[in-house]
């Protein structure tokens, strides 16, 4: 199963994606049945700088949001949501009001 990762803002360089427009999609191959949380943990292992933000004392940190198929992750099953082949996982920074 292959999923596509898109990270915005300060999360992007943490995944080694420094440039904005001139890279192709960030594709990750995972076993069937992988959940969003397992994907995040996998990314954290591959990119420790991302892991420092994504995990806190071994738990999902809440310092970023996930959108899956244009819907907030919370509304499509949360962190235990099982991913499907071809899913686009959008990782977005939490932001404060201006």
């Amino acid at each position, binding site marked *: 199963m292959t999923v596509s990762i898109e990270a915005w803002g300060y999360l992007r360089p943490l995944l080694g994606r420094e440039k904005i427009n001139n890279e192709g999609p960030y594709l990750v191959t995972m076993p069937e049945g992988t959940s969003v949380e397992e994907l995040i943990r996998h990314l954290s292992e591959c990119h420790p700088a991302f892991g420092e933000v994504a995990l806190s004392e071994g738990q999902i940190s809440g310092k970023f949001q996930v959108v899956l198929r244009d819907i*907030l992750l919370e509304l499509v099953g949360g962190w235990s949501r099982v991913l499907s082949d071809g899913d686009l996982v959008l990782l977005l920074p939490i932001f404060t009001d201006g």
Partner: protein
Amino acid sequence: MLYGNTGNVLRVDLGENTVATENPHPGLYQKWIGGAGLGTHYLISEVRPEITWDHPENRVILASGPMGGTRVPGSGMLSAVTRGPMTGGACSSQANGFFGAYLKLCGYDAVILQGISPAWVYLYVNDTEAELRDASNLLGLDTWEVQEALIKETGEKQLSVFSIGPAGENLVRFAILAGDKGHIASKNGLGAVLGNKRIKAVAVARGKRPVPVYDRDRLAKCAKEFMDNPTSVVSTIEKYGTGGFLPIADKTGRLPVKNYTTNLCDYVDRIDGPYLRSHFKLKRHPCYACNIRSHCHQITVTEGEYAGYTGDEPETESLALMGSNIGVSDAGAIVMMADLIDRLGMDVNECGWAVSWVIECYEKGFFTYEQTGGLELRWGNEKAVVELLHQIAHRSGFGAILSDGVKAAAEKMGGEAKNMAIYAEKGNSPRGHDHRAVWLEMLDTCTSSTGTIEASSGGTDTKPFGFGPVTDTFDWKQVATYLGKLNGQRNLLDCLGACRFTVDNNAVIPRALTALTGQELTPLDCLKVGKRITNALRVFNLRCGIKREADRPSVRYGSTPVDGPARGKALEPIWDDMVNLYYETMGWDPLTGRPSPETLKDLGLEYLID
């Protein structure tokens, strides 16, 4: 010796035309730190419940804080506290720029304004004098023009001028205090209070009195820590301004679109921060001692009908409210309208909700072309909006219906039209987001006592306080307990005298305060000061008659999104339970929202137990 603060407060009686310096007891600074804390102390001590926002005895406290005027980044912040007209309760509102630093360098921690002047005046302060001066020549000028006029009149090149525009003169209830060309204390009608007092501006020259610092070397290290460890929020601001958050808002369902009738907008990439920064001309306009090199700018539109227009670069809320929220897709028009609102002296948030409400009403036939005086108030018609904004600011024509805010206008209309308006029942304006996708900020906005969002701050690291952030934006139990634990952190930031973008580091703040004042503090000690403010303002509002019933969203504000990333998620069924749990976490009576005697005693506020 007092460190961090100057120990001087300037009390100005506008009715008596007197200016006097007071020396608050040093214990006040230990208890309240400064800024919003000091302002809260004076508000609860001197403004009794019968003193309404327009009463001569209402106070306006303009304060810096211990960081003000030091090498801490962004240390020009101004905190304003008063009783405001939008909620009828407390107002605590902040602006950046230079004012707070210059005030400290003139030898003052705060200015207290009281009384009503018989004629229009402005307050001039430098490091050797403070006096009220005739402002009759400033009447009718916008907030940028006042700055230019007073720099010319005083001959001071380094002069921070915060003023009210025409809206404040006309007591528009969401009038602002604006200064240093682009910085706004916008909440709860601060500008209307000042207009009622007939004070057009406060102008402070850059003084030369050094701020007394307990340990300069240690403070220098803390300042460097603030600079070296910016919050994640700052990295986005550096690149795109806060307008860089607009596309994120779009993807997460928090972008307000057409008065919350939809969450779909197909032109975000033509009005967001990246677009503005790549298409328009920018000139840096940093605040005092700011280390965020690329936040504040003046911007010149370079394309389209408004090419050549120069104003303040809009923040994310302005872009959303004058863009997607009213159907405008021309970035140049948005820059122009956001800047016009600042110059006229109005809160862009309230303007945004008022304009989007009236457009939806017009589109649905609740207002006719004749009733609007010939304004074709349709989505995306910025020309009609510009005329409407002028009318609101001058309380003239059809626009006067909105000059007391959207809640007042909607209540006059009643029926279905009332249900379309976006406001918190207390009367304050939500910030320019769709909070139906961010329950934390919805709960905060509705239960706040400051006239705006009070506690939640997406970027802050709460680990030094011993708890983590919300991991599910729709888990109401998590949201309520998090907000209850967090509330106080933001009020703490507003005590410091520095921009919350630059010093929002809960581990460094206590060390910096120790270096500034000599007072040993832990992160939890600091949070406790913030909670003291939160609870004092809560008691103030209760005494003003603001009850639990006001702690909820209007029908539309609390409605269910029909589309977009948060579609179908209903807030109404759990609202009361969420508020109850929040009260409980705060140490408040779950039924009334009144701080318990134990909570007040723990915070050293025994004297507020009713």
